[in-house]
């Protein structure tokens, strides 16, 4: 995974994009540690549904969250495209289950637009904005917000 800033040019940011249901989302590539194929997780008792459980990441016990359930989307079958995106949030390592990883998106700061209201389907408070490239629209996630609602993770 290439996490170096390739372009020092003013305000070009890179986002790893992935798919959840029909939507495309992006997280800042600097937050992404690695991408893993989906493997079995150990469920955690009495945890909310979007916490799939914990898995072993080279000796560390990492929680795995299902972003679909986090965003109130219906749970999907695990396919061969299902991957776990390992990200750093508040000095913790968290795995996110997503439907599929697409690519790395370069975009200028001015092509990012503030988030329009998307209605009841998706809670927009998780988003920093929308990146627009031609017809393509990528919702950019604010990871702190995504987990900020989780009391312990925010600590």
């Amino acid at each position, binding site marked *: 995974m290439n996490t170096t800033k390739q372009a020092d040019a003013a305000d070009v940011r890179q986002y790893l994009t992935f798919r959840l249901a029909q939507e495309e989302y992006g997280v800042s590539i600097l937050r992404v540690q690695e991408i893993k194929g989906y493997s*079995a*997780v*150990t*469920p*955690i*008792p*009495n*945890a*909310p549904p979007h916490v799939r*459980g*914990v*898995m*072993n990441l*080279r*000796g*560390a*016990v*990492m*929680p795995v969250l299902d972003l679909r359930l986090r965003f109130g989307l219906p749970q999907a079958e695990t396919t061969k495209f299902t991957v776990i995106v390992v990200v750093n949030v508040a000095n*913790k*390592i*968290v795995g996110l289950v997503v439907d599929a990883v697409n690519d790395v998106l370069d975009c200028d700061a001015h092509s990012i637009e503030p988030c329009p209201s998307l209605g009841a389907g998706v809670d927009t408070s998780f988003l920093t904005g929308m990146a627009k490239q031609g017809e393509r629209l990528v919702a950019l996630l604010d990871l702190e917000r995504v987990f900020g*609602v*989780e*009391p*312990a*993770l925010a*600590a």
Partner: protein
Amino acid sequence: MQIDLTPFRRAFLDESAEHVAALEEGLLRLESQPEDSELLSSIFRAAHSVKGGAGSFGFEDVARFTHSVENLLDRMRNGLVRVERSLVDLLLRANDVLKCLLEAARAKEYGQPAAAACDTRAIVAELQQRLGAPDGHAASAAPAAAGATASPKSTSLWRIEFAPHADFFRTGSDPLLLLRELAGLGRVASIEADLHAVPSWDAFEPEDCYLAWRIELESSATLAELNDVFLFSSDDARVQIQPGEAARADAPDTAVSTASVDAAPAVAHGAAQTPSGTQRRSGAESASIRVSVEKVDQLINVIGELVIAQSMVADVVNNFSPERVGQLREAVLAVERNTRDLQERVMAVRMVPIGSIFSRFPRIVRDLAAQLGKEVRLELEGEETELDKGVVEKISDPLTHLIRNSLDHGVEPPDERERCGKPREGVVRLRALTEGGSVFVEIADDGAGLNTERIRAKALEKGLMRPDDNWSQEQIHQLIFQPAFSTAAKVSDVSGRGVGMDVVKKNVESLGGAVAIHSTRGQGARFRIKLPLTLAILDGLSLSVGGQIFILPLVSIVESFRPRATALKTLLSGGEVALVRGQALPLLRAHRLLGIENAQTDPTKALLAIVESDGRRVALLVDELCGQSQVVIKNLDANFRRVEGVMGATIMGDGRVALILDVPGLIRLSEGTSSTLALA
């Protein structure tokens, strides 16, 4: 050929440190058990080992000094010098000098500047004085010096009783060889076999030894030489060697000597109690670490697997074809898994029992109690609790301080205790335990407890709190950890200057721990140090519930069985109980507490594990038990958060994560008093 003795010398220095520790521990025990000849022998052995090694490796001053200590010990062993407190005092001081000498030798060995010079002369003079006579045996270096007093040239009559234990043959020993060896030492005047123990034919075990012998031997050999014959079978036989009538006149101070024969197990015991050399003071601290054979065996196993996995990779790569990608991936995964395993096992090597520092406290308490004119008994518990070596080393100073504090401020003088209706002797308990994902070390005394009013007054005076502050007792007690906060009326040598408690707190917090105080006025105080368990190892029992594997700490399990329907009752309130030997225990369904589907819900088809926590027993319903294993505890809150009922997680052999159940947490869950689960 020139042999480099350096590694042997260094090993000797390490071993000596352990011997010195064993000596100290033995001497402290001796005070309360002066009649224990076995103990005395083990002390003697420790001193003798130091002397022998020191002589061989050219530490002349150590050898010479230990020799005078050994002489006195030998006299004590033979009942010529009575064990009394002042004598133990002297020997303890002598042990300190020995420690100092060894420290100096170690500094020299490693080319470090020598510490302060050790004054041996005064102690040696005192030791000589105790011997009552100029050192007559100085020249003799035999282990049982006193036994050697019979003139070596003249033959004397020895009575030897030799009774091998029943399993004598199983250790590969043969009494015949020993008897032949004895015969080689002189003339056998008479030999008589004792056939009493031989059973009837139907009870006869062909592999058991039923015989014993009484031998009269005319020999010029010394007692030590005779003892040497039985040296290697001392654990498996009862041996008694007595000089016959003729010899007794010549050697009036030769008493019955079963001692050196019995000593071997006792020494082993002493060493087991101080399993690592961490008692050396800082500077030399991290020189070596003692690791249990079991851990090393596990390491070897993992290495073996790693070698196999590596050869699998090599095989696939050498005969590579595109179809074998899957195999390659598998092989690489195996390597990865084994490497991780190896990493964990290596970390486990760093885990040492906390007992290695506990063992220094009896001495501290003894000396301090004497200095303060108090009567204090120290009770140790949980010495086997394992902690990372680094943590163990760093926790030593805070513990020392808390113990000194308990003795100085906690336990009252004997007269005052009597007035309060307490026994004259105060008790300080030092306890280590693993609970709920942490290691706790407790220092509890049955003394006066903290004086909340005085602390409050002092805090007001210092402006640490305002008069209208409505603080809980615990909050007020925590004030004693403030720098320069002391309520002691007078400053003593021991404590009262207000330095120390803040250091205790700082040190514990630097280890990621916390200190809590529970104090009841007049009944005593308890300091509870909580230490994180990031690396701790746990003996666990793996069990399954609904196909999921969990680990239950082995210490909390009492028993497990499949219940009969008649042993199960449902109460009117809906609660369930299981009758276990006439006792009704609450039945906790693990699948319900943990929210697991597909589990076996019929108790008569599942298993009940009787678990215990804080003296409470409950029956935990699980599907089945899978086996016992040692697991490395990983914190869940490192990347997630604490989960009620779970003390942590571990990574199993197949790379999957298994959760470690926390019995107190499960009980709380079942009572619905859980505080977590406030989730988005």
